């Protein structure tokens, strides 16, 4: 695991400051331009969800990636933030408080933070399995209680609100999707910068130390418990902001916000993206939200694909997507990256065939069992297959087995090429 992030090293290079701020400026510009390019309602919906997921996943990574705390109940802060935001929005509308909508996410953040302060002290006494289990227990407790405390959580139908009823700002009603998009985009940028800045503070550094070796942290005079507590508070705060934004986006808060599914998804997102790098969870959030929106449209067994992708990442790329990308940095700097490209291209084809075979097998089985007698035609990438035909099964088996065998050969070549490239990089001093 490396603490150094791409951005960080950029900053430390001569002239890096410009490039460092440049990245955030580019991000800001991209966020502004994005809805002008993709202006349909569904793309705005997708962007909004992705933006919220990014904040949520980044907040989760304060725990998992930075401080080494595996939480199974992070959605609690997200959900409580959402509920507080909805209640405050309703109160603002009822009592005509002068609080415009753009500040509501902050209220959500306070909600998440408040609960983190409340339970955090006992939770963070210990790390590891104990923390994971307490977070699981607290998560279940809060989710179940939300159904009992009806007056606060509105039972299972939740509490609704109207985001246009709040005082307007710059003449924006925040009724239209696009205005909500810009609101979310603003908070994504602010939160991301804040969370990045957090990693650069002494607190962020000591969090990493607590993750790697709490005993030594204690020797140098810090209490790991206090450090974990602070990290937990910040994670709760930013999760609350994400929850507040969700409340604004959907204009409803309900117990599904707090549930285990939500906690599971954020874990997926952070881990798939890669917890060792700051931008990892961002990639993960984009991918996971994207898959959630897209996969559910095209296949009923999306959960299986989710599971497979997750298992694949855990087994073959525990650093996540970010880890895979950053592996290549020394090669790029040493200039030896062209060595690996041909082997990648060579491996891509059989690997694709293998993946296609797996997809075809899954869809064939799913169709064969789901629809008895009717609707057996699978339309895979535009090519129709009959799920009951033996040929389909044979083709699927052939693709899987053949693809795997050939792919394995090519993966060896990739490994060889990688070794060669890495040796070059090592010789030039870019790789330890």
């Amino acid at each position, binding site marked *: 695991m490396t603490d150094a992030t791409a951005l960080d090293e950029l900053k430390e290079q001569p002239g890096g400051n410009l490039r460092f701020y440049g990245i955030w400026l580019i991000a800001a510009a991209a966020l502004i331009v994005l809805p002008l390019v993709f202006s349909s309602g569904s793309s705005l919906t997708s962007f909004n969800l992705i933006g919220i997921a990014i904040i949520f996943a980044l907040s989760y990574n304060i725990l998992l990636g930075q401080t080494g705390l595996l939480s199974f109940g992070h959605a609690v802060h997200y959900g409580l933030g959402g509920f507080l935001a909805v209640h405050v929005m309703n109160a603002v509308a009822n009592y005509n408080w002068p609080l415009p909508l753009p500040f509501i996410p902050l209220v959500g953040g306070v909600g998440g933070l408040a609960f983190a302060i409340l339970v955090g002290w006992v939770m963070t*006494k210990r790390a*590891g399995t*104990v923390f994971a289990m307490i977070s699981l*227990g607290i998560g*279940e*407790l809060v989710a*179940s209680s939300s159904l009992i405390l009806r007056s606060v959580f509105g039972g299972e139908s939740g509490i609704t609100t109207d985001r246009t009823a709040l005082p307007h700002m710059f003449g924006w009603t925040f009724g239209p999707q696009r205005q909500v998009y810009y609101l979310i985009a603003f908070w994504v940028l602010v939160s991301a910068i804040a969370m990045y800045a957090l990693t650069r503070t002494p607190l962020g550094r000591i969090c990493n130390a607590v993750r790697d070796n709490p005993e030594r942290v204690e020797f140098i005079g810090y209490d790991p418990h206090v450090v974990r507590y602070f990290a937990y508070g910040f994670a709760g705060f930013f999760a609350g902001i994400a929850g507040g934004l969700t409340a604004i986006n959907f204009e409803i808060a309900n117990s599904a916000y707090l549930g*285990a599914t939500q906690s*599971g998804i954020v874990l997926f997102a952070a881990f798939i993206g890669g917890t060792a790098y700051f931008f990892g969870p961002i990639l993960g959030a984009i991918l996971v939200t994207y898959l959630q929106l897209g996969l559910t449209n095209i296949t009923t067994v999306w959960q*299986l694909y989710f599971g497979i992708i997750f298992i694949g990442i855990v087994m073959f790329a525990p650093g996540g997507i970010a880890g895979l990308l950053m592996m290549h940095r020394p090669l790029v700097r040493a200039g030896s990256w062209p060595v690996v490209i041909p082997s990648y291209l060579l491996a891509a084809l059989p690997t694709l065939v293998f993946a296609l075979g797996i997809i075809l097998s899954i869809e064939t089985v799913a169709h064969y069992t789901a629809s008895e007698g009717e609707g057996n035609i699978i339309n895979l990438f535009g090519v129709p297959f009959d799920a009951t035909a033996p040929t389909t099964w044979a083709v699927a088996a052939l693709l899987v087995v053949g693809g795997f065998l050939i792919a394995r050969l090519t993966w060896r070549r990739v490994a060889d090429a990688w070794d060669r490239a890495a040796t070059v990089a090592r010789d030039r001093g870019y790789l330890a």
Partner: protein
Amino acid sequence: MLELIVISTLNGVLFGMLLFLLSSGLTVIFSMMGVLNFAHASFYMLGAFFGYQLTRWIGFWPALVLAPLLVGVVGMAVERYGLRNTHRHGHVAELLLTFGLAFAIEEIVSMIWGKSPVDYRIPAALDFPAFTVFSTNYPAYKIFMLAISVSIFVALLIVLKKTRVGLIVQAALTYPTMVGHLGHNVGRVFMVVFGVGSALAGLAGVIAGPSLVTQSDMASLLGPILFVVIVFGGLGSLPGAFIASLLIGLIQTFAVALNGSLASAFGPLDPSLGPSVLTDIWNVTIAQIAPILPYVLLVLILIVRPMGLLGTRET
């Protein structure tokens, strides 16, 4: 009142023993390998579905033996091709692998057997009331479940504490290299342990399937409770899991049997206060919160005694 107490105790013990049957495999895996297996409940579900399928083909009794073996094989495959490769990335990675596996298994099961409950019945030989207490029948099948759970507990204790195999297995956890030097194949030991643990879950599935509903969401329904049991009892402690199972079984059934709420104890609140958190809490009955009581216990014990009831170490 006496009637309710006797019957609730019986029900509590029965439910507790089922929990123990489920958690025994989980705790054995944990105590041997240090892996918290999120997919354990999924193996239980696989056991139920294998049991159902085999019962249809070859009858219940052969299925009772074969289905757990099959689940054990699946478990060994997971260990050999999954966990073993992930081991070097640490326990979090292992845990996450089983987390993903739980997702995948649930979907595979619902792909094959559908999402509705399957018609998995109690074998005719055991489908009669064993005895009657206060005009409530006790099905023979539940007694059968009870008997199996108790024998598994005894057998596991004997194997782990009294046999050479148990010693090697325990040593392999703490000193893997030393055990390796002594000529034992540590990898294989772990694989077998994981297989046995999964097979135990599978056995629980085979016998619990007909009594509960055999459905593709049965794993997610019981999964979290299992963690409560083994964490509460002390991670890796078999007697701890046994006590915790019984305790949680009894607490849950007695909570249901009681009708108390603050409102019934101290009288209803002044209605002029209107609906608020206070009235919600005031009116909630113990029966209503029965299923969340285990989580309260979990949080409390972890705060007070992080190693659990009979545990010896924290993680």
